[in-house]
């Protein structure tokens, strides 16, 4: 017999009568449904107003053109601000006959009636963040996609992974900074423009008014101070000073000696598979395609923590086998002449640039030629310093991808010449406008020429270089006498510059087929 406990334990309750039990069940059900509803609401609110949501694209080409690589939180600008800046501050854009971000050389995709098919040019990715504010920033395609055409009357043809030979990336950042410093960059002015563009989520509106706009102005003004030195040696069209922004913004260098400009031509990035294991970058400072890509992502503005590796990997995988572009079928090509040029290529070029039929393998492909041999402009090489390299190793030390393979070299690396026709101008600093000019001795190459024209010179193998303007568009002058912009080097009998003109023509014709 059990001994009753007196008093009954505090938690003792009679069983509930049926109505109370039913009410409890209802309350529990209601609480459950309410909890679910609140959880769903919280998830929705989190997703809408807190979470970081990149704008994704199913197709790989769209992903390359508009997909995020995580640079938005490095140098992103709130999208709605970004969108109104060109119309608010057109005077801060290059005055080259084009309008909006196209004036900076970004590629706007258009339908056959000339209407843009996307609300940003190629090379801009968006990622939504707190307050439903979407940030926009450049991605791989901004520097590695551009246009070409056979004549000024033709529509521009877009080619992905080609060097953005029309892009003035530095001016883009300069434009943003100028806008940020402009006294008209006020909450009222920007909000008025934003609101004029249509409905805006009320939370987003508040976020813009009280956070996004003031903070963007603050950040741009802050950048103005930090990046001032960057604009002292403008890279110009189709080029970028790879390391100076890194040094100034990421590492906060102040020593002028450490801040030597090292402008380089933007490279093509197709067909990466054969390049695996080669010395990459113009000076061959790295042998890992993956590390090189992460470094480029950080260069595009991603931080070691914001870089979006899975999305970068999609691009990386695609680029491995993206074929180089063929010489357009509707363009003239003298096959017999090219045939004559082939032995010349094999004799003069193949050793360093590879045999096309053998996946561009060659004795010296992907190796570094010492500067004293190649003789090209040394500034890019000098700008990559031991000091900078050491600092690079300090990036992402807690990340699996942390850099291991950067090395300081003593020259420039040989590269495969796949799709070389679309990679003009030539040499690491883009100082030689066409393939034909590259076969001339350095002293005979153009001292100045114009960059940014996408009309192709089908004879010489490069973009039209001798016109300051065309079709209402002006093209900035490239002066080889400026520091770092020399067109010297890659010169001498072994580089084919002593060949007879007819042989040079034959070799150029062959190069067009690569």
């Amino acid at each position, binding site marked *: 017999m059990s001994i009753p406990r007196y008093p009954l334990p505090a938690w003792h309750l009679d*069983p509930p*009568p*049926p*109505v*109370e039990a*039913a*009410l409890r069940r*209802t309350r529990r059900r209601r609480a459950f449904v309410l909890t679910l509803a609140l959880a769903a609401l919280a998830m929705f609110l989190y997703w809408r107003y807190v979470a970081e949501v990149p704008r994704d694209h199913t197709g790989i080409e769209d992903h390359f053109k508009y997909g995020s690589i995580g640079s938005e939180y490095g140098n992103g600008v709130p999208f709605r601000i970004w969108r109104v800046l060109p119309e608010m501050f057109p005077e801060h854009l290059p005055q080259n006959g084009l309008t909006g971000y196209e004036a900076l050389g970004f590629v706007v995709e258009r339908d056959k009636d000339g209407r843009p098919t996307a609300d940003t040019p190629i090379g801009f990715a968006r990622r939504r963040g707190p307050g439903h504010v979407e940030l926009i920033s450049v991605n791989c395609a901004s520097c590695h996609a551009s246009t070409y055409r056979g004549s000024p009357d033709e529509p521009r043809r877009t080619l992905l992974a080609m060097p953005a030979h029309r892009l003035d990336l530095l001016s883009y950042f300069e434009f943003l900074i100028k806008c940020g410093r402009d006294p008209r960059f006020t909450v009222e002015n920007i909000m008025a423009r934003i609101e004029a563009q249509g409905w805006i989520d009320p939370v987003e509106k508040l976020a813009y008014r009280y956070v996004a706009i003031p903070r963007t102005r603050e950040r741009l003004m802050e950048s103005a101070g930090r990046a001032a030195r960057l604009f002292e040696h403008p890279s110009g069209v189709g080029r970028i000073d790879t390391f100076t922004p890194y040094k100034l913004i990421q590492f906060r260098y102040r020593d002028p000696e450490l801040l030597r400009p090292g402008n380089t031509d933007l490279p093509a990035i197709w067909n990466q598979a054969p390049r695996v294991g080669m010395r990459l970058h113009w000076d061959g400072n790295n042998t890992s395609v993956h590390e090189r890509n992460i470094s480029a992502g950080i260069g595009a503005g991603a931080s070691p923590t914001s870089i979006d590796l899975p999305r970068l990997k999609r691009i990386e995988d695609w680029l491995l086998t993206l074929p180089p572009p063929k010489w357009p079928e509707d363009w003239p090509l003298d096959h017999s002449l090219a045939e004559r040029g082939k032995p010349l290529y094999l004799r003069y070029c193949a050793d360093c640039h590879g045999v096309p039929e053998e996946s561009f393998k060659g004795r010296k492909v992907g190796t570094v030629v010492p500067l004293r041999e190649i003789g090209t402009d040394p500034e890019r090489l000098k700008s990559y310093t031991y000091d900078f390299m050491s600092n690079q190793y300090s990036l992402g030390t807690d990340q699996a991808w942390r850099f291991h393979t950067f090395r300081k070299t003593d020259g420039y690396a040989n590269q495969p010449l796949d799709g070389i026709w679309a990679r003009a101008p030539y040499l690491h600093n883009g100082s030689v406008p066409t393939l034909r000019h590259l076969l001339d001795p350095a002293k005979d190459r153009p001292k100045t020429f114009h960059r940014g024209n996408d009309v192709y010179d089908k004879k010489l193998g490069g973009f039209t270089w001798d016109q300051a303007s065309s079709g209402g568009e002006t093209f900035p002058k490239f002066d080889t006498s400026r520091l770092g912009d020399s067109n010297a080097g890659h010169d001498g009998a072994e580089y084919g510059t002593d060949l007879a003109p007819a042989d040079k023509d034959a070799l150029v014709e062959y190069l067009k087929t690569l």
Partner: protein
Amino acid sequence: MVDQNGDGPWDVIGRPITFARSGLTVKNRIFRSSISGTFDSYDGTGGYARLNWEEKFARGGTGAIISSFVPVSLRGRIYPRYAMIHEDRTIGFWRAVGDRVHEHDCKFIIQLSHAGRQQDDRGVENRFRVGMSPTDRKDSFHGLLCKSMTKSEIDQVVEQFGLAARRAQRAGLDGIETHSSHGYLINQFLSSGINDRTDEYGGSLENRARFLREIIASIRAHTTGHFHLQCKISAVDYNNAIYPWEGRGNTLAESVQVCKWLEDDGVDGIHVSTGSIFPHPRGPAGDFPIDLASEAYDPIVSSGVRGRFNQRIFRGAILSRLFRWWWRHNRGPVIEGINAEHAAEIKRRLSIPVILNGGLQRASLIARIIRDGMADGVSLARPLIANNDLPLLFAQGHDLAPRPCTFCNRCLLADLKYPLGCYDLSRYDNDYDRMIGEVMSVFHPSPYEDS
């Protein structure tokens, strides 16, 4: 006022009525309709106040009193403190009631009842039970829970009605009325809006009426001779009056058919009312006093799963007014003789007497209804609570009592919390103490007073 035969209203109303089959004769056409009051002991043992209560009406000239809601079993109660007839030990009490009423030449018909699921307060004895019903679906108004009855439970309840009838006869009462209306158990079986059974007690009208007809048979089996037996029927259910999405329930045609079967089964009379819930906008037809509802509803808040919901409505400043409007809207403009047309239709199709219930207190109207053959008698409750001597007033030539019932329904709601009586302050010249004095008069004399 005077008809073509030169008869005044009382000449018609005051004429005795004899139920041909049972031989029950009532001295006039005024029946006190069933109305309960919490006058008894908690366990259903009758109390002295009920004797006083019923005597008020007998003394006032009422021809026959139909008792309070008298449960035939504990599970059939709607409220504690209503006298029951569930055990033989209650016979003595009912005999006393009968005797007291008979002293005034008034008949006493006991209303045998079973609440089914419609138990406003099922009492502590039933605390862990839910209501019995033909369905598992809870009641639509208060959310009173229930469980569908098994066949053996049905048989048990049928038997309980028979046993209760036998007790009534042994108590010397004058007759029986089955409470087969107002949403109580028998009505739950009858109503197509409530009964969702698929066995022989659900589906067709014949099946739905089976339960009542078995009760009639049981009563006949348990009583001797041809004991007077009448059935109170909701002529039309209006089951969706409050919640329009509920089923409509039985139509008049269906009820007429049920009444015809009852006539065939030997029932002596039909008492016509309306509604398959109680209270219902049309029964008792009148107002819904939200001020009283907000306090009187308290005791039954915990009885059903919609109690708190209803209480919020009754206590809400706007919701209560909306509810009151909805209630009055569903009642319609007519109060007096609200069910007269229904009774007339039943009377036309039947040969047994028909008693009409519903908002009647005007002698001329009552006389006209009887004279026109719409009904043979009328049953009143609220007007008799207001004026216990209304039949005498009619006999004296009053068409309407000097202070008539206002159909405010305050008595109806007060019953949930307070002693039953007329709580219409306007009838007492706004003298609250006088009103309470009148209400409390039911407790005098008590058996313990030194006279």
